[in-house]
């Protein structure tokens, strides 16, 4: 039996500038992606996303990012790179970055491979499709 992998799309559907993760979620849901892959709408959750990191081989996060490239860029970031840049980054309840920085210390078994598809700018239709392509490509890769 194949192990589950998950794509977790993060963002705020009510704020145009931060909705792109959710748009990618809807794009992915309209595609064929295989029954060993789960697509999750992570919304604004941070540490509360932890259960989705358990019992799977791979997590691909999809979120808007700032400062990595020109608007419209869609990038793949690995967990080590994310944590290296954002040691101080967390909100009062422990946001997503707090969770990512804590992951190595939580002793999750098995520890999933984690990467992020980061999207620069609010995005458009083509960018949503490109981010969805990259997310599926990443989730299908061998760990």
């Amino acid at each position: 039996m194949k192990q589950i992998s998950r794509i977790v799309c993060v963002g705020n559907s009510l704020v145009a500038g931060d909705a792109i993760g959710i748009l990618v979620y809807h794009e992915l849901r309209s595609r064929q992606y295989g029954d060993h892959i789960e697509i999750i709408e992570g919304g604004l959750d941070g540490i509360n996303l932890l259960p989705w990191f358990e019992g799977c081989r791979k997590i691909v996060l999809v979120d808007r990012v700032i400062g990595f490239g020109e608007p419209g860029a869609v990038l793949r970031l690995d967990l080590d790179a994310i944590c290296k840049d954002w040691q101080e980054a967390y909100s009062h309840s422990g946001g997503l970055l707090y969770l990512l920085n804590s992951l190595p210390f939580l002793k999750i078994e098995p520890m999933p491979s984690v990467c992020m598809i980061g999207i620069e700018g609010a995005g458009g239709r083509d960018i949503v499709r490109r981010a969805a392509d990259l997310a599926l490509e990443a989730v299908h890769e061998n760990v």
Partner: protein
Amino acid sequence: MTTTVYMPMNRVEGDLEVKVAIDDGIVTDAWVIGTMYRGVEAMLIGRGALDGLVITPRICGICSTSHLLVAAMALENLAGSPVGTNARMVRSIALGAEKLQSDLRHIFLMFAADLVSSGYAQHPLYLEAVRRYQPFKGSTVVTTILATRKVLEITAILGGQWPHSSFIVPGGITSQPSKADLRQCRMLLSEFRRWYERTVLGCSLERIEAIKNSMQLEEWISGKEVHRDSELGFFLRCGQAFGLDTMGRSHESYLTAPDYIGANEPGWGGGGFIDGGVLQPFDQVRIAEQVKHAKYHTRSSSGHPLATDTHPTEQADAHKYSWCKAPRYNGRPAETGPLAEALARKDPLFGQMIAAGGASALTRELARLLRPGRILLDMEQWLRNIDTDQPYYHPVDLPLDGAGMGLIEAPRGILGHWIQLSGGYIDHYQVITPTTWNASPRDDQDVRGPIEEALVGTPVRNPADPVEVGHVVRSFDLCMVCSVHAVSKKGASLGRLRIGT
């Protein structure tokens, strides 16, 4: 000489800036500044009556159950429709789960992070504080993340979905938890209780409940090594050693919402306003928002939440410094949260502590640290009392026109939604969150908001690193939402681009 320090607050949800004037190492004045406009109310105008159930939970990624619940209660209040016992208990359990995770994460992940500030490096307790509270990897941090992760599964089981549960609707809940579901919830709760008693308290809930005053609390700490070294014991020792019990006294007026949903008797559930040590019954008509110092049009934006709009000013006068309004009860500022809740409940320990010396940053956190004990006992009782043979939902005939309100005690204090429908559409919507009470600017009489008042008198050893200001502000567990959930490579400390309050 007076030094003015601007302090952007990280680890506070959304945008907040605190400005303090420091004279000879003491804060002499303070301004709490909400830096961004929230605007959720404006978004709701003209939408369908039920849209608040979908939109307002997105106000906050932490308290989404609280907003969902209050939005449903406002519509039930408008319809004059009571809610069945089963639904009230399931709702209360979900709200309890939200409070459990919020309280403990705030204390150990966010508040305690300041206790490892380099300013305390010479203190004998410092190394142990680092071992426990170091961000991401401290022993207490890790165990708190893992324990609170499990408790939210209760909401997933009861609501049938997590995250973004939307199972609370006018008339009850849409799910039908079975006996097996409730059994699973009881198991999860038992697991959490075991962790809370063994690790956080170092003793049973009953033993903690037997503590009635600060002398007995000191005796409890010194009585056994397991108490002294528990999370509660160490946090208290650390807090006292670092002087957290000597800073943060505010107006000594407290506001708590009635517990309509948890009450056995619908329509009454305690709560109230405490001023001058006297508890007055709660009456929501005494709530009014004031905007002399908030960046809104004074004429249309002041008054009771059902009678006022939220109209931002394009060019605010210089004395308008915050995007938070200033809610007042009976014209008075009031702090809200677990400490206010304990006082309204006439908890003897906190009653004695406040009577003896007033509130402090440490008292507020202690109230937050002990609240899970009472919540756990309540949740256990509700889980036992749900009768799966009885309905979880009754249809509600929602009128096309009318007004209603919902009020609960959310994780950070009193949360209210006020709604007015016209022809089946939302004509008016107002939300007052707990943080709006606590982080309010000065009011129409120029009286400081609760946090501003609490900051005055705070000693600051190093204005370049005013960690004491952080202790006082964070003791209110602010939540200035909504957050735009983006990450910035160059952002110095904030993990999100924010559009809060």
